[in-house]
C-alpha cells in the first residue's frame, strides 16, 4: 500500500460510520474502490497475453502461484489509451462474481491517489450524465473536497462474458 | 515401569481400540496385524501380556500361542485369546496350545481393562 493510504488508515482508525475507499486516477477522473476488496497494489509488470481475449484484457500474471488476469480500465471504459509510465499501477482486487465465486483481477490505472471515507448516505446515485464509465459499473458518486469520486462496482468488472470483439476473416 | 502388552488383531479398528484403551490406563502397547508380525516382535523383546485375535491371515491366533509358548521368555507369560461366544472348540484348541484364557467378543473397553488388570496384578 502506498504510504499515504497507510497514513490515512491510521488517522481514521476504525470509522464505523463509513466505508473506506482507495481512490485512483484514470484519465483525469477519480475513482474509488472499496478497500475491503483491494488485495494489493503492484507496479506494472510483463504480462502473458491471452489469445482472442477482449482488448482490455492485457493478459495474466503470476500472483504468488495463482494466475490473475490484468484488465486495463482505460480500455475497459473505452477511454483513450496512454503509454504506461512509472506511475502506472495495478490494483489487485477480489470480489464475488454473479455466480458467487470469489475471483481476483488486476486493474491497470494511471496512479493511486488516496484513501477516503464515505458514509452510505453521502453516496449519490449516478445520473445519466454521459459519464465516461457505464453506470452499471458505478455504485455511486461521492464528493471529496471539490472533487467527485466515482465509486466502482468491482463485482461488475468481473463479468467478462460480454465482450466487444471484432472478427477478421480466416 | 509400566507393564507392556502385545495386541494382535488383523482388524486395524480393533487394534486401535484395544491400544487406545490400554494406553489410556497406563500400559505400554505394541501392535501386530497377524501372528507372523507378533512372533517377530516377541523374538526381540518380552512383554507382560499378549492379547490376540484368533482368525488372522498368515498365522492365526492359536498357532501364535503355540509358537510363543516355545519361546523361553514366553513360557509363563499370560496369553489371552479374543474369541466369539459360539466357538467353544476354539477355546479348547487355544488351551491345548497353551493359552491362559480368553476374552469374549464383542467386549467394551471396561471389560478389557478389568480382565487385563486381573491378569497383570
Amino acid at each position: 500500500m502506498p504510504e499515504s493510504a497507510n497514513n490515512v488508515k491510521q488517522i481514521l482508525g476504525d470509522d464505523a460510520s463509513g466505508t473506506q475507499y482507495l481512490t485512483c486516477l484514470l484519465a483525469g477522473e477519480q475513482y474509488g474502490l472499496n478497500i475491503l476488496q483491494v488485495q494489493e497494489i503492484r507496479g506494472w509488470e510483463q504480462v502473458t497475453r491471452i489469445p482472442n481475449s477482449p482488448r482490455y484484457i492485457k493478459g495474466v500474471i503470476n500472483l504468488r502461484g495463482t494466475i490473475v488476469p490484468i484488465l486495463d480500465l482505460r480500455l475497459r471504459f473505452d477511454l483513450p489509451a496512454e503509454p504506461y509510465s512509472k506511475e502506472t499501477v495495478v490494483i489487485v482486487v477480489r470480489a464475488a462474481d454473479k455466480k458467487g465465486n470469489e475471483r481476483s483481477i488486476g486493474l491497470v490505472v494511471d496512479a493511486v491517489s488516496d484513501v477516503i471515507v464515505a458514509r452510505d448516505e453521502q453516496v449519490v446515485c449516478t445520473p445519466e450524465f454521459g459519464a465516461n464509465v457505464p453506470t452499471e459499473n458505478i455504485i455511486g458518486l461521492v464528493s471529496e473536497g471539490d472533487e467527485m469520486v466515482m465509486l466502482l462496482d468491482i463485482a461488475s468488472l468481473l463479468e467478462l462474458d460480454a465482450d466487444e470483439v471484432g472478427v477478421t476473416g480466416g | 515401569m509400566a507393564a507392556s502388552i502385545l495386541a494382535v488383531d488383523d482388524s486395524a479398528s480393533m487394534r486401535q481400540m484395544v491400544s487406545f484403551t490400554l494406553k489410556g490406563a497406563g500400559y505400554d502397547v505394541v501392535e501386530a496385524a497377524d501372528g507372523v508380525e507378533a512372533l517377530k516382535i516377541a523374538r526381540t523383546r518380552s512383554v507382560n501380556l499378549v492379547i490376540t485375535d484368533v482368525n488372522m491371515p498368515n498365522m492365526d491366533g492359536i498357532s501364535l500361542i503355540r509358537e510363543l509358548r516355545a519361546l523361553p521368555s514366553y513360557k509363563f507369560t499370560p496369553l489371552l485369546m479374543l474369541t466369539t461366544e459360539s466357538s467353544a472348540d476354539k477355546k479348547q484348541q487355544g488351551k491345548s496350545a497353551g493359552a491362559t484364557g480368553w476374552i469374549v467378543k464383542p467386549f467394551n473397553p471396561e471389560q478389557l481393562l478389568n480382565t487385563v488388570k486381573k491378569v497383570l496384578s
Partner: protein
Amino acid sequence: MSIDMAQFHQVFFEESFEGLDVMESGLLNMDPGTADVEEINAIFRAAHSIKGGSGTFGFMNVSDFTHVMETLLDEMRDGRRQVAADAIEVLLQSVDVLRDMLTAARDGGSADEARVKAQYSELQRVLADKHSSDDAVADPVKQASAVVPEVQPVGWKIVFRPHPHLMRTGNDPLRIIRELATLGETSVNCDLSELPAFEEFEPEDSYLSWDLRLHEPVDKSQIDEIFEWVEDDCDFAVVPVMPEGYDPAAAVEPPAASDQAEPVAQKKPHLTEVPPPEERRVTDERRNEAERRKTPAAAAGGSSSIRVDIHKIDALINMVGELVITQSMLGMLGEDFHISRVERLREGLTQLERHTRELQESVMQIRMVPISFSFSRFPRLVHDLSSKLNKKIELKMSGENTEVDKTVIEKIGDPLVHLVRNSLDHGIEKPEERLAAGKPETGIVRLSASHRGGNIVIEIRDDGRGLPRDKILKKAVERGLVKADDNLSDKDIYDLIFQPGFSTAEQVSDVSGRGVGMDVVRRNINELGGAIEIESTPGKGSAIIIRLPLTLAILDGQTIRIGKETYIVPLVSIVESIQIQESMLNTVVGRGETFTLREEYLPVVRMHEVFGIEDHDAKRLTDGILVVVEGEGRKCGLFVDDLLGQQQVVIKSLEANYRKVEGISGATILGDGSVALILDIPGLMRLAKQGGARTRAPLALTA
C-alpha cells in the same frame, strides 16, 4: 471412565468396506466344485472381522446380520457344508445388503429394512437346508449346574488343586486366589503334601494345592467365572457351606435342564417372506446401474482420505530431511558470501534441484493409487450383466497394479463402466451366434492397464462382432454428420460414434444405450487430458484404447515459441515435429493448406493467425517448424517459430480467476516466474476450423 468409540469408527468403516470387497471378489472367484479352504477362509475372516468390529462399536444390526453369513461360511470352511452355487449366490446378495447396512451406519441413514429382513431369511433358509447341528454345542462353562437350593449358602468351600503344568499356561494360582478374595473374606489353607524332595523339584511345575473358604454368600457363577480359564488344568470343586441347622433333605429338586443353547440361526423372530427371485434380480440390477460403488476416496459425506503405503511416507520423510540439510548448507554459504565460494554455491544449487525433483516425484507417488480400485467393480458387473443378457462372457483383467493419480481414478470410473457395458451389450454376441460363427461360446473381454511412455494406457478388448461400419455410416449420413460420398476411412467412420446422441443399437437396452453416450465418454477423457481411440475388425472384435496422463496436476510439455510468446504443448498430444519442405505442401480445395505425412493429408494450422500474434518470425512455412499433434482422433500440424525445451509443468487454472479460453487448457509458471499458457489441442483445432484470429489492439502499449 468411558471412552468415546466414535474415533475408531472411520477406520472400522474403511476396513469393513475393504472386507466386503474381499468377500465379493472371493465369492465371485469361487467355483462350487473346486473351492479351496484358504479361499473360503479368507472370506470367512472378512465376515468375522466385520461381525466382531460392528458388535464392538455398537452396530448390532450389522453384527447380527453378518453373524449368519459367518455361520454359513464357517460350515463351508470346516467341510460341514458343500460349497454350492446357490449358497454362493445368496452370500453375494448378502454382501450387497451388508454394504447398504454399513453405508447407512456410516452416513447416519437407514438401510432398506424390508430388504435386510428378506435377505436374512434367505440366509437362514440356506442354513436350514442340510442344517448341521454342530454349531449348537452348548458352552460347557455356561452349562453350570442349575442346582439352586432354596436355602442360600452362607459361603463356599473351594478345593483348588492345580495340575503340575498349570503355570505353563501363563496362569498364576496366586492371582486366581487373589481374585477370589475380592469376592469376600477368604481363608486359605495351603497343602504342601505333594511337594517333592529338592532334587526332584521342577521349578516350573506346580505342586501346591489349596483349600479355600469364601465367607461370603455370593452366586456360584461368580466363583466359576474366576476359575473358568483353568478348569481343565486343575482339580476343582466348589461346595456350598450351608447355614447352621440346614436340612439337606428339604432341598428342592433342581429345575429342569436349562434349554440347550438355541441354534444361533433361530434367534430371530419369524421374518417376512422372501420376494420372488426376479424381483430380487431387478433390485440388484437397479443398484448396479446406479453408481453404488464409490472409489475409496469418494465416501459420501465423509472426509476424503487415502491409504498410503508406509514406505512411501518414510521415503518422503527422508527426502525432506535431505532437503533441509541442503537448504541449511546453502543458508550458511549465503551468510558472508564471497565470490571464491561460487563453486560450492553451484554444487549446492544442483543438489537442491535434485532433492526438489525427488521430493516432487515422491509426493506424486503418494497420490498414486493402483487402478484396481477402478477395476474392482468389473468382475461383479460382468457377472451380473452377462446373466441378465443371457450371454456367456469371461472377463480377463491385467495390470491392476498400474498406479494412477487419485484424481484420475475418481473420474475414469464412469467412462470405463460405460465402455465395458457397451462391449458386453453390443460387442459380444449371444452364444448361438458365436457358435454359428465358429467362435467359442464364451466371449472374452480383456481389460488392461499399463504405463507406456509416461502415460497410462487402458484397453478394453473384446472378441465380439466388431463395430458395424455400414450401419454407423448410414446413421451418420441420416444425421447429416457426413455426406454419403465423403471419402472416409474405416477409422474415420468408427470415430463417428463419438458424436453426440449416436447410438446404432437396435433396441436401446437400458444397459448401455441410454444416450449417456460415447460423446460424454470422450469429453470426460479429454477433460482428464487424455485421448480415446477405437479399433475394430468386423467379426473378430473391437478395442478401445484410452491414454491418460499420469497425473492431472502435472504435465509433460513441449515449449514452443511464436514471436515473443511461448506456449506449452502437452507431450501426450505430439506425434512428431518436422521441418517442412515445399514438396510436402499443397492446397486442397475445401480444406485449405495441407501437408503430407506418410500418405495422409493433414491441415496446417498457422498459430500466429489463430492466436493473433503479429510479430512472428517465420513468414514462410518452410522457415518455421511444424509440430504434428493429435486430438480427438484427428491430426494437424501447428506452424510455430521455434521449439524450446521440454519440461514438466505444474498445471494452474486459468478459469479460477479468468474464464475458459478456447484452445487453452490452463497455464503454468515457468522458472523465471512468468506465465505460459498450455494448449488444448482439440479446442485449438476447433478454433482453427472456425477461422482466423479476432482483432486486438496493437501490442505497442506493453512497457
